[in-house]
């Protein structure tokens, strides 16, 4: 390993992916639940919007985020008023970008899990006057565990691999927005292949192990995760 190899971008990426995954699981649960149960006409529109980051080039997302998160933007301006900090070029801004970027990877597995729920235990819980929260944790969550695991793993690994959006709104600040993909890009651009190899290798092995553990658990639990 090159002695000067900077591992800070790796930790930063892990931090970003963790924060994003936790927040997404919280926000995506009610959204996925609504999508799984509603018959509202707007459902297809919302589903299409959720799926957009799957197909849009990250530059499109990055371009809009640069404007929206900027000091005159719809989110950036009020944020600046409230906190006296900007959203572009900050970790907070990257979290917001990642929430959008990884949204479909979390919502879709959850929605699938909720749609496949056995309704009878849930109806029984309602008849027994269990609170919505209680029925969620005692009835829904155990059944949807598989979906949650898939959502968490996909959300986490996808955020870990985020590049184009960060390149456009990050500003390459060490410890703040220089995530591992940007650091690898920089190393390649400056022909520092040794450092690029180390970081890329670490990311490759780490991601592989995460997926391997999930698949292995999957087999033992006799449930399909991905």
């Amino acid at each position, binding site marked *: 390993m090159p002695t000067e190899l900077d591992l800070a971008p790796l930790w930063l990426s892990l931090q970003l992916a963790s924060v994003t995954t936790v927040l997404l699981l919280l926000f995506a649960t009610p959204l996925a639940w609504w999508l799984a149960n509603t018959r509202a006409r707007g459902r297809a529109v919302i589903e299409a919007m959720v799926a957009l980051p799957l197909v849009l080039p990250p530059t499109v997302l990055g371009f809009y985020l*640069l*404007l929206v998160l*900027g*000091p*005159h933007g719809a989110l950036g301006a009020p944020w600046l008023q409230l906190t006296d900090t*900007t959203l*572009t*070029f900050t970790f907070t801004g990257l979290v917001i970008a990642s929430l959008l970027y990884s949204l479909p990877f979390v919502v879709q597995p959850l929605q699938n899990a909720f749609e496949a729920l056995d309704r009878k235990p849930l109806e029984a819980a309602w008849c027994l006057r269990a609170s919505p929260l209680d029925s969620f944790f005692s009835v829904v969550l155990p059944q949807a565990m598989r979906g949650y695991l898939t959502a968490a793993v996909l959300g986490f690994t996808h955020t870990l691999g985020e590049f184009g959006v960060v*390149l456009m709104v990050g*500003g*390459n*600040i060490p410890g703040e927005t220089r995530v591992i993909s940007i650091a690898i890009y*920089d190393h*390649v*651009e*400056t*022909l520092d292949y040794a450092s690029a190899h180390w970081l890329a290798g670490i990311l490759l092995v780490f991601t592989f192990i995460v997926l391997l553990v999930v698949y292995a658990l999957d087999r033992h639990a006799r449930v399909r995760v991905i």
Partner: protein
Amino acid sequence: MKLPVLLLLWFASPLLHAGEVKVAVAANFLNTLHILAPVFEKNTGHHLLISAGSTGKLYAQLHNGAPYDVFLAADDKHPALLEKEGLVMPGRRITYAVGRLVVWSGRSMPSQEGAQIFQQSGIRHIAIANPATAPYGRAAYQALNTMGLWHILKPRIVQGDDVGQVFQFVASANAQLGFLALAQVLNPKNTFSRDYWLVPEDLYDPIVQDMVLLKKAENNSAAYAFVVFMQAAQARTLIQQAGYKVK
């Protein structure tokens, strides 16, 4: 004409065309090349295919066999490296411009302000190009360092991939100041303020911009024509007007 014939002509058109030059250009010179390109194309009937990026990035691409005929860099170091690696036609490394570093805010600035602009309130972010890959970023770092401001301003520095992104960071108001090439500010397509602070030249190493004709272009007469065009009086005048010095 029948559709198949039209399609055939369309596919074959690059072959029928006079000649084609693939140019890799450092981001600072992109606007200027867009001014030069129509003149060259009109003079010679050849066609330019332009790709822009930071000098370091384009160098890395050329080092790995990218199919460019001519490389217009923002320094003389990367072209010299290519020459040393034997990728350049002998004697075809030529200085085409000397760059001038400016600080730009996108808004009107009193000209007498000088280095005071960094002390203004409301300067949250100062954009520079990545010093590791972009010569203008390196010059910005040197200038701030020489002024003794680097360590003070470091928390506010954000890096663009090249000076093109620096322009865009300032234009979109995400950064309040940016270090750019003068030519980017003077560019006719710049719809923002043309006020700038010309960074004194003793604060940074001269930005000597070299171009090279690559060995790949050995049999491309259009590429030779372009190199000749760039050294002729007409091009030199246009380059000067765009905001560079010429040797």
